[in-house]
């Protein structure tokens, strides 16, 4: 399975998912993306850039490792307009998966779906 196919699968695996991308956090490049509707590259660039800020935040990762969530945990942001999930790639520590979902997505189903798609993406390499 190619990275593209794995990302397409993410739209089905992750509940209420509208867009997904795979970003290289060290260079800031979005290496793959897919959405239910066509979205400009800037949309994915912005999502990848913010995921990089959150997943490389020393303050957040220290807290997660020590107090809850774990070093490999996913970061779910339930925003006023939509929900985003960011998680580091299982294969490459400086790569990350980013998902944008509707606000209706339930926390447990979201976490399970993202972890499943993360595995699918890992198998694509």
């Amino acid at each position, binding site marked *: 399975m190619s990275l593209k196919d794995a990302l397409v699968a993410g739209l089905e695996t992750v509940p209420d998912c509208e867009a997904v991308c795979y970003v290289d956090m060290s260079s800031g490049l979005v290496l793959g993306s897919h959405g239910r509707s066509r979205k400009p590259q800037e949309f994915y660039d912005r999502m990848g850039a913010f995921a990089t800020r959150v997943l490389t935040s020393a303050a957040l990762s220290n807290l997660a490792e020590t107090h809850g969530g774990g070093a490999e945990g996913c970061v779910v942001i339930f925003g006023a307009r939509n929900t*985003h999930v960011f998680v580091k790639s299982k294969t490459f520590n400086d790569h990350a998966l980013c998902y944008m979902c509707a606000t209706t997505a339930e926390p447990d189903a979201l976490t399970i779906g993202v972890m499943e798609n993360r595995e699918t993406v890992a198998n694509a390499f």
Partner: protein
Amino acid sequence: MTLDPAIVPLLSDIAGLGNGAGTGRRPIAGSSTAERLQAIVELIAGTVLPRSYVIHAGEAAVGTLTVASGRLMKIALAASDASAKPDSDTREAQISYVAQALALVAGKAGDLLLETNYLADDLAAEDVGQTATELRDFFGATNWLADGPAGEDGDYLTAAAALAVAQVAFDAEGQPVQRTGDAKAAPGDGDIHALAAELSSWQSELEELAGLPALLVVRDGPSGRAMALTVGADPAVLSILEGNAVPQVKSLWDRSQGDGAPS
């Protein structure tokens, strides 16, 4: 042989008593967590003789309640949802644990079905359990059974504290303004200060991307420890949680933002 037409609606009602017809199961009223909690608490209030209630979500048993004399004597969750018992023996810690477990059951997706088993009348009263009134008071204090939205961030702060292992509320400068729960599980002032600095640098990007205020959760699965952090709220609230409390905390957050009753 023909049936009296008058009996047909009655038979129809009996057939429609629930998806669990024929298995001795009946539906628990309500579609929201709050409505189902209300129904379960009323069930406890109305149970005098000892009963064991098994609650099913679809085919899976999600919790077993042992009830007698209007008291919840014991609650056992499915293995996937079971969390550690509270370290403390205080009444407050015990009721918080029980309430969290009940809310977890009530918040399950799909229809909830109730199976009743009769227990011997001499059920040992080795534990005082929790009365329906105590449960009602607890849920009332944390606004779980309210009909409308919680309305203020302050309500989230109080309600989330009841579910959290530890919680810290802090201002924009990273100064803690309230600490609750297990001090050993809570982050120190230095960690909070560093986090507050990060949050302030994220706010405009996060506003553009997802909208503020937001609830940020870090977790590696439906169980295990997790962390929930409000962003764009004053004060910010960092809650250290058992992972299975995340859906309830998310419901509280939604309600505090005026999105209606917990789903």
